[in-house]
C-alpha cells in the first residue's frame, strides 16, 4: 500500500510538472507576450517598444530558463539599470540595496509571483478566491451527493419499475443540461421580476421580495443565504447529479440481483430492511469513486456558474487570468486545479481499496 501511494505521488508530481510546463509554454508564446505588454504598457506601442519592455522584464529568455526561475531552481533575472538604484529583477523591485536582493524566488521559496491584472501577490489572491469557491463547493456537495444517492438507490432497488423509469429519465435530463442552459432557465423562470414565477408569486403575496431568488450571487460572497446562493448551487449540482445517480442505480441493481439478497428475501426479511441493511453498504462503494472523480468536473461547472452569476471565486479568477494572459496567476490557477484533479484521483483509488474488502484481501 505504501509503495503504491509513493508511486502514485511520483506520477502525480511528474504530471503536475508536465502540465505546468505546457501552460507556461503556451502563455509565453510571443503573440501572448505581445498582448501582455500592450495591455500593461499601452496599446500603441511599437514593435521595438514591446520588445524592450519584454526584454527588461525577463520575458525574452528561453522558456526553460524562465520555467526554472518560476520554479525557483534557477536564479531570477536581473536588469541592470544605469545607476545601482535603477537595477531591478524578478525577485526585488528597483531601489533595493544589493545585500537585500534574493537570488532565487519561485514556488520552492514559496513565492507565487505577482499578478499583472490585480496588482497584488498571486498567493493571496488565489487563497481568497479559493475560499469563496470552497464555500460554493461545500454547499454543492451537500446538495448534490445526498440527492444523487437517494435518487440512484430509489431507482435501482426495483429495476424496471415505474419509479425507476421516472427517476432514470430525470437523471438523463439533468446530464443533458449543461450549467449554462440550466442557469439561464433558472434565472429566467425564478429570478426575473418580469417573467416566470416571481411576478405571479409576488402578486399573490407569497413572497416579500420582488423575485423568488436573486439572479446574481455577488452579495453571497460576503453573506450567503438561501435567497442569493441557492440558484448557483442548484445549477452546479444538477449537472453532476444525474451522472452520480445513474452510477448509483447501476451499482444498486447489480447488488439487488446478488445471491445474498435473494437469500435474505427467502428468509422473509422485510424489503425496507434488505435495502437499508444488506444492499446499501455494498451498493455505495462504486458511487464513492464516481463522486471523487466528479469533483474535477465540478470545476468546469464552477467556472461557468461563477461567470453567469457573477460570483467572484476561483472560476472567475481563472477567466480573468486567462483573458488577460496574466501568466503567473494563470500558472497558480492551473497548479491548484491540477492538484485538485490528481488528489481526488488518488483519494478515489485509495478509498476504493479501503471500502472494498474483496480488493483489500487479494
Amino acid at each position: 500500500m505504501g509503495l503504491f501511494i509513493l508511486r502514485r505521488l511520483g506520477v502525480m508530481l511528474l504530471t503536475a510538472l508536465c502540465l505546468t510546463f505546457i501552460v507556461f509554454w503556451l502563455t509565453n508564446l510571443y503573440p501572448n507576450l505581445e498582448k501582455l505588454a500592450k495591455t500593461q504598457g499601452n496599446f500603441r506601442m511599437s514593435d521595438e517598444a514591446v520588445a524592450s519592455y519584454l526584454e527588461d522584464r525577463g520575458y525574452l529568455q528561453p522558456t526553460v530558463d524562465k520555467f526554472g526561475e518560476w520554479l525557483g531552481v534557477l536564479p531570477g533575472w536581473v536588469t541592470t539599470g544605469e545607476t545601482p538604484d535603477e537595477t531591478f529583477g524578478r525577485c526585488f523591485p528597483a531601489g533595493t540595496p544589493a545585500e537585500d536582493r534574493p537570488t532565487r524566488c519561485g514556488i520552492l521559496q514559496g513565492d507565487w509571483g505577482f499578478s499583472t491584472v490585480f496588482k497584488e501577490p498571486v498567493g493571496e489572491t488565489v487563497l481568497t478566491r479559493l475560499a469563496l469557491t470552497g464555500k460554493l463547493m461545500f454547499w454543492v456537495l451537500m446538495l448534490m451527493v445526498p440527492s444523487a444517492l437517494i435518487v440512484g438507490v430509489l431507482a435501482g432497488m426495483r429495476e424496471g419499475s415505474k419509479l425507476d423509469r421516472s427517476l432514470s429519465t430525470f437523471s438523463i435530463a439533468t446530464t443533458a443540461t449543461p450549467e449554462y442552459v440550466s442557469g439561464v432557465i433558472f434565472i429566467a423562470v425564478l429570478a426575473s421580476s418580469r417573467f416566470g414565477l416571481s411576478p405571479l408569486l409576488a402578486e399573490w403575496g407569497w413572497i416579500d421580495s420582488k423575485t423568488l431568488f436573486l439572479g446574481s450571487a455577488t452579495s453571497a460572497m460576503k453573506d450567503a443565504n438561501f435567497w442569493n446562493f441557492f440558484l448557483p448551487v442548484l445549477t452546479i449540482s444538477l449537472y453532476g447529479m444525474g451522472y452520480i445517480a445513474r452510477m448509483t442505480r447501476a451499482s444498486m441493481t447489480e447488488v439487488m440481483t446478488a445471491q445474498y439478497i435473494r437469500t435474505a428475501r427467502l428468509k422473509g426479511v422485510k424489503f425496507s430492511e434488505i435495502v437499508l441493511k444488506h444492499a446499501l453498504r455494498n451498493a455505495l462503494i462504486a458511487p464513492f469513486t464516481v463522486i471523487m472523480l466528479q469533483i474535477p468536473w465540478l470545476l468546469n461547472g464552477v467556472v461557468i456558474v461563477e461567470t453567469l452569476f457573477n460570483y467572484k471565486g476561483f472560476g472567475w479568477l481563472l477567466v480573468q487570468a486567462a483573458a488577460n494572459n496574466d501568466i503567473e496567476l494563470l500558472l497558480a490557477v492551473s497548479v491548484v486545479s491540477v492538484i485538485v484533479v490528481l488528489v481526488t484521483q488518488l483519494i478515489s483509488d485509495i478509498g476504493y481499496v479501503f471500502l472494498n474488502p474483496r480488493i483489500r484481501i487479494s
Partner: protein
Amino acid sequence: MEQLTWTGSLAGLNIIFLGLCVMLALAVAAQIVVSFLPASDAQEINPDGTVARRGGLAGGLNRAVILLFALLVLVLLIYTIAGAFMGPQAGIFGGMSQQMLPVWIALILTFAVSIHFKRRLGLYGKLFDSTVGMIGFAIVMFWVFTGIFGGLFDLLVTHDSLSQTSGMKNKLPGTPLRSPDEGVYPWFLLGGDNLARDVFSRLIKGSWVVVQIAPLATLFAFMVGITLGLPAGYYGGRLDTILSFLANLILAFPVILLFYLLVTPEIVMTGIPNYMAVFLFIFPLIFLAVLLNSRYYTQPSFRTPLLIVVLGIVGWLYLSLVSTDGAIVATDTYRIPGLPSMIDLFDIDAGVLVVFVSVVFVNSPTVFRIVRGLALDIKTRDYVAAAQTRGEGPWYIMLWEILPNARGPLIVDFCLRIGYTTILLGTLGFFGLGLESESPDWGSTINAGRRLLSLYPHAAIAPALALLSLVLGLNLLADGLREESLRD
C-alpha cells in the same frame, strides 16, 4: 399586423393541453405511489378452467397513463399539423410549424421508410422497437434536418440571421415588423435580440453550426482514440504506459483552462492549431490504411490498387483540410507550403479550425481510455486466441476481431459523445472563444442574451432550450441503442 399570441386561434386547445399535462403528472405520481404497495394478486377462475389475473389498481393506472400520453401526443400533433396549414393564424407555434414544413416531411419520410424496412436494418432497425430510442432519434433528426434545410439550403428561416431590423430591438416573441416590405415575413416569431436580429432565424442557422461540427469532431476523436487505444490495450507494456500517461495528462487539464489557452487569436497566429490539425487529422488516414492492408495483404493484386484509390482520395481530403491558401502553416515569419489552392477542395476558417481541433483534442483521450479498456477485455476471448493460432497478424486481430466485437459500447458512446461535444461547443460560445461574436451558434447566442436575462429572457432561452433538446435527444437515443444492443 398585430402581435401574435403563442397559439392564436387554436387557443381553445390550451386548456385541454394543460389539463392533460396535469392529469398525466398525477397519474404517473399515483403509479409511483402504487408501486410501493404490495401487488394485489387478484385472480379469477374462468368457466373453462383457465385462470386470469386481473391487473388491479396498478394495471388500471398503467392503462390510464398510456391513454393520457397518447392523448397528449395527439394534441401536440394537432398543434403541429393545424399550425402547418394555418400558419401564423395559429399563433407563434403555427408560424414556426409552417416554416418547419420541409423538416416535418423529411421526418415523416425517414420514419416511414425506416419502420417499413426495420427488420433488414440491423441495430438501426431495432431502434424502432424502443419508444425511448424513437423519441431520441426523432429529436436528433429534427435538428439534423433543421440544420441541413435551414443552414445549407437557406429554407425555413424568415429573415437574414445577421441583418438588423429597425424597431425590433429586444422585442417579445410574435412582434410584427413596423413596416414590412413586400415579401418580407411580417413577424419576428421568437422576438428580436439586443441587436434587433430575428431570434428564430438565428436559432435555425445556429443548428447548422452544431450539426456540422459536433458529429465530425466526434468522429475524428474516435479515429484517434481507436487507432491509439487498440494497440495500447492489445500490446500493453511500455507503449500502454506512455500512451496512458499522455491521455491522463490531457484529462487532468480542466477543459475550460485548456480552451482559454488554445482557442485565442494569439494562439491562432502562432500556427499551433495548424500543427495540431496536421497531427490529429492524419489518424483517419492511418486507420484506413492499416484496416485495409491488414485484411488484404495476402492478395497484393487486389490490395495495392485498393489502397492507392482509397488513400489517394482520403489523402486529398486530408491535404485540403489542413491547407489554406496553399499553405499548411502560415505565420508572419515563415510558411510551410501545402496543397496549391487550385486543387484545394475547401478552406476552413482559422477560427472554426481551432475550435474543431481543440474539441477533438479534448475528446480523444476519453475515447482512448474506453477503447483500451474494451481491448483489454476482449483480447482474452477465445476467438482472439483462435485468430492468433491461425497466424493472423496483430493489426488484423485488433481491427477485424476486437473492434467489431466492441462496436456496441462504442456506438452508444458515440451518441453520448456527440452530445458532450455539443455541450463543449456551447461552452466555447458561452465564453466567447473561437467563433466570431456575431456567429449564430447557440453558445454565442446564449452569451449575448445573458446580459439582459432578467429583462428580456427570450433571446437566451430559445437557444438554451434548443441545445437542451438536442443533447437530451442524443442521450435518449444512446439509451435506446444500449437497451436494444443488450437484448441480442
